[in-house]
Structure formats: C-alpha cells, structure tokens
C-alpha cells in the first residue's frame, strides 16, 4: 500500500528540500520504490539538490497539462533505479496547477510507487494547497527558532483543518553546543510548544552543505545528519529507532578514520 507524504514548513529555508531529498533517497536505500515531486513551481530546487538538473526534459506542469505522459517526465536517480524525480516547472507560476490535478496525479503515481514525497513550497497559498491536496501524511520541518516554530504551528493548524491523518515533526539544524549553554530551545521545548509527535532530530551539520554542493544526498553516510535521516526513514516504515545521541564528541580515532575513507 503506497503512501503520499508532504514535506512542509511554512517558513522558507528551514530544510524542506534537503529533507525531501534525504528521506526519499533513504527510503530507496531501504528498497522502496519512491518518487519525489517538486511542487515549488517557479522556484524549483529539488533537481539540483538531487544532482539531476541536467536530465530534465518535461516537468510537473507538462504532465498536468497533458503535454507528456508521467513516465516521460520522471527522472531516474543516478544511484537508485527505484528512485525517481518529477521536477517542477521553472518558468510558470503556482496557478498553473490546481489541487484537484495534484490529487489525480498522486493517485496515479500510487499504482507505481510505494512512497510519493511532495516537496512543498514555503507559504500557505496555492502552492501549499496544491502540495497537500493528495497527501495522506505530513512531515513538518522546523528549526529551533521562533519564526520557524510560529510558522510550523500555523501549518499544523492548516493540516488539521485539511484532515491530514498523520502529522509528524522534524527538528532540523539543532546545535547542541548552543542548546547546552541555553541559547537555543531544546527539542523538548519545541515538541511541547507544537504538541505533535516527533519523528526526527537532525543536527546542524556542515556535511549537508557539502553534499548539497555535490548534488548527492547525505543519507546513509556516517555523518551525523546522514544517520539522523536514515533513522527518520526507518521510523517512517514503522520501526522503533532510538533518537541519536547528538552530544557525542567525535574522538581522535573516528576523525582519523574518516580521513582515510
């Protein structure tokens, strides 16, 4: 049985696209058939984060308008044959697609894929309405900052109003050093305020910037953020995985070892 999951946040720049790329790739590593849909029409980015920007022929709007078949627009991932991307259109605007069309599209993709992940645009306007139209489930991404949490709260309210059955929280870019000295809200603080179930905590990790530079998701590597994303994927499949101890200091040996990799 396939599942349609929307990755959303309200605020921009908190890591929706990075999360979509890593969770999607992580699910493919767990041998699931996955399709990622970039619903941010006009500001597409998932293609570059996935490193597939040079392979785009058709896009989401082409599919919806019937200029091509779905299969023609899907781009196969470089490493995982069961992972595909449906890129967004760069030169159109949000009104090119309606929520009904999105729902029809996701329903068609259900026949082919186990997981359909929707990378939602920032904001709560039509792009958001399009992205959540066909979703069974939502992952709300936030950082431990007042602006991101306030927007996440608004999004959670809107998801409830749209009767999305399951909404879970990802706290992204946590900095343990700042939490320890009391200058960043803790994960518990964020969960208490937003009052939804936590599915993952991703530490602020410079490896994310590096992997995005290269167009290769970090999930599955030894980097802390990579492990955090791998755990989120297992939890999505229903596995109970303890949360990472983000406080652990890298010792000299692991640093040395990573040098020789």
């Amino acid at each position, binding site marked *: 049985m396939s599942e349609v999951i929307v990755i959303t946040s309200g605020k921009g720049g908190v890591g929706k696209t990075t999360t979509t790329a890593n969770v999607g790739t992580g699910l493919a590593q767990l041998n699931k058939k996955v399709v990622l849909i970039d619903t941010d029409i006009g500001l597409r980015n998932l293609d570059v984060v996935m490193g597939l920007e040079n392979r785009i022929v058709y896009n989401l709007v082409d599919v919806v308008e019937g200029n091509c078949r779905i299969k023609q627009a899907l781009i196969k991932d470089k490493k995982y044959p069961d992972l595909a991307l449906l890129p967004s259109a760069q030169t159109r605007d949000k009104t090119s697609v309606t929520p009904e069309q999105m729902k029809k599209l996701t329903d068609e993709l259900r026949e082919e894929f186990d997981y359909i992940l929707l990378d939602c645009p920032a904001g709560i306007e039509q792009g958001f309405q399009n992205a959540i139209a066909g979703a069974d489930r939502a992952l709300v991404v936030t950082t431990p*900052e*007042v602006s991101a*949490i*306030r927007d996440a*709260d*608004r999004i959670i*309210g809107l998801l409830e109003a749209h009767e999305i059955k399951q909404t879970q929280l990802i706290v992204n870019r946590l900095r343990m050093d*700042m*939490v320890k*000295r*009391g*200058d*960043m*809200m*803790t994960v518990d*603080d964020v969960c208490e*305020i937003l009052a939804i179930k936590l599915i993952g905590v991703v530490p602020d990790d410079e490896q994310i910037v590096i992997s995005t530079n290269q167009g290769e998701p970090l999930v599955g590597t030894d980097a802390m953020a990579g492990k955090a994303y791998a755990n989120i994927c297992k939890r999505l499949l229903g596995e109970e995985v303890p949360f990472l101890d983000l406080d652990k200091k890298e010792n000299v040996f692991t640093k040395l070892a990573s040098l020789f990799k």
Partner: protein
Amino acid sequence: MALADFFKKKNSGDVAKDRLKFVLVSDRANCSPEVMEKIKNDIINVISKYMEIDAEGLDIQITQTESENNNGTVPALYANIPIKELHHSSGR
C-alpha cells in the same frame, strides 16, 4: 562560568520559548492585537451600561488555563475590569 554570567538574565533559549508561547496563544485563537482592541472596546460599552468602570485600567488577554475536565490546558479570555462605581439608579 564567569561570575557575571550568574547575574545575567534568563537564557535566550528560555526567552524564545516564553515569547513563542505567548504569541502562539493569540495566533491559535485567531486574535490579533487589533481584534483584541475591538473586543476590549465592546466590553467597555456593554459593562458601562450597568456600572462605571475604569476603562483605562481595563486589561484583557488570551491566556492558557487548566481545563476543568482535566484534558490539559485550554485557551481562556481573561479580563480584569476595575469598577469605579455601581449605578444604583439603573434599576437593577
């Protein structure tokens, strides 16, 4: 830890949490400061029919309160309305 830190005010993380809690209560209740001002004025008009109140000292806000059915906290409209004088002549 330096001695100066000891006397410093709250951690910025706690400040953030407190500010967020406050702003979310009014966000969730869909009550912007403008709406609150309207409610306040309406309350003044209604109560003033029956008693003389101190409009300057009137304070209303949305807060969290323990629910009576024990299902956690619920939002509540809190109003503090200082009375100056009851209207004896108003017939009630």
